[in-house]
């Protein structure tokens, strides 16, 4: 039942993404709030699983966006995989792990979107995509990482409360 919290949270994230975050540009790049939230959630120690979060986020973003549905789903699953790999390996440095997952997750999601659109015959110059879109988007995601991590940590503590010691 605890996993059901993913639906309203991801829904809120997608609404915020389309209504607000997508309007804040850095060059041609924008932040990806669901991706950063997913990374922050998957890195929480108490969180048992984040796969359904990735699926919900991928389906919702795929529904709203004109991108082919597979691109966000695979991208968000890749973020969860990255978080699972790094969780616990970056000793006592959750923020460093958060930055790493956000950085590499953003790059992977960008490469996936680029590849899918190129396969759909959309003309995308690599130089423009890298300089005007991918790097600014990664920077914006990194800026979002710290506040989103704090919010998701509090959410994780609320969903998975610590057992009382007698």
């Amino acid at each position: 039942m605890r996993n059901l919290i993913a639906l309203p949270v991801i829904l809120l994230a997608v609404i915020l993404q389309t209504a607000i975050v997508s309007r804040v540009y850095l060059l041609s790049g924008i932040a990806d709030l669901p991706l950063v939230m997913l990374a922050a959630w998957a890195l929480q120690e108490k969180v048992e699983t984040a796969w359904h979060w990735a699926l919900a986020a991928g389906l919702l973003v795929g529904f709203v966006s004109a991108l082919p549905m597979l691109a966000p789903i695979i991208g968000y699953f890749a973020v969860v995989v990255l978080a699972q790999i790094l969780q616990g390996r970056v000793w006592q440095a959750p923020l460093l792990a958060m930055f790493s997952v956000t950085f590499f997750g953003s790059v992977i999601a960008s490469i996936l979107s680029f590849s899918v659109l190129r396969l759909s015959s959309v003309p995308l110059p690599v130089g423009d995509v890298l300089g005007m879109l991918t790097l600014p988007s990664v920077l914006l995601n990194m800026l979002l990482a710290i506040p989103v991590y704090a919010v998701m940590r509090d959410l994780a503590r609320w969903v998975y409360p610590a057992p009382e010691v007698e």
Partner: protein
Amino acid sequence: MAHLGIDCLHSNMRNLFSRTLQTTIIFLVVGGVMALALGGYFSSASNVFTASLVNVQAWFSSRFLAVQDFITAPRDMASLRQRNIELEADNAELQAQLIQLQQQAGETQILAALLDFAQARPENSYRAAAVIGRDPSPFLHYIIINRGSNDGFLRGMPVVTDQGLVGRIDAVIADAARVQLITDPASNVNVRLQNAEVEASLVGSVTGDVNLDLIPQDINIEIGDLVLTSGLGGGYPPDLIIGQVVNVRSRDFDLFQQATIQPVVDFNHLSVVLVIVNFKPVDIAPLMPLP
């Protein structure tokens, strides 16, 4: 005994005479002083006296006011703080009302301009919709509007503002629709240059720039030429304004010229758009030769 009584009577008479005399003298003295004062003979002395009185009273008054201020000042500060809080709350409320009214005024101006635009083109039927979001992917240039198939919107319907062409509807659900902007890298619009009377292809880009392609080399393009939809291909109605030529790239070894277009629509600040609901797009895909 009789002698004693006479002495007593004499003594009483003397006392009575003495008191009457004293009273008379006092009245005379007081009356004289008053007569002298009313005659102005004591003005200098009375001035000194009243000035002293006034100074003394002023001293007491100033000390009293100082003490009163000391005692009542904290109460005044508290009431001033309370009043300040109330005024700040009123100010915040008025500021919010001002912002709301400015927003309503802006929306009214936009709607008035859209109404003028619709009235100027009676051949088309328009329906207004508000922009409620943008595509979450930075690779794509799409907007989301708050009306869909319940309002008669269909895929392929052109979307405009009072300034010019915005794009066309790409996907529809019951109460919302997704609109592909002409700045989208996958967008392709058949256009004509008004002055040169030549047709070309307008393509978007990932950075949001809009470019003209497929312009024959022998055509002379001027900066400032107006770009309109041509209506070819059936995707858009003809003669919708798109923008102006701001830059021309012509190289001898290229097959076609290219030009950069400055769109008339500000795509970063779209709030309300019009959908042309009586336009039926033609799907020419089945007529295209297979690769």
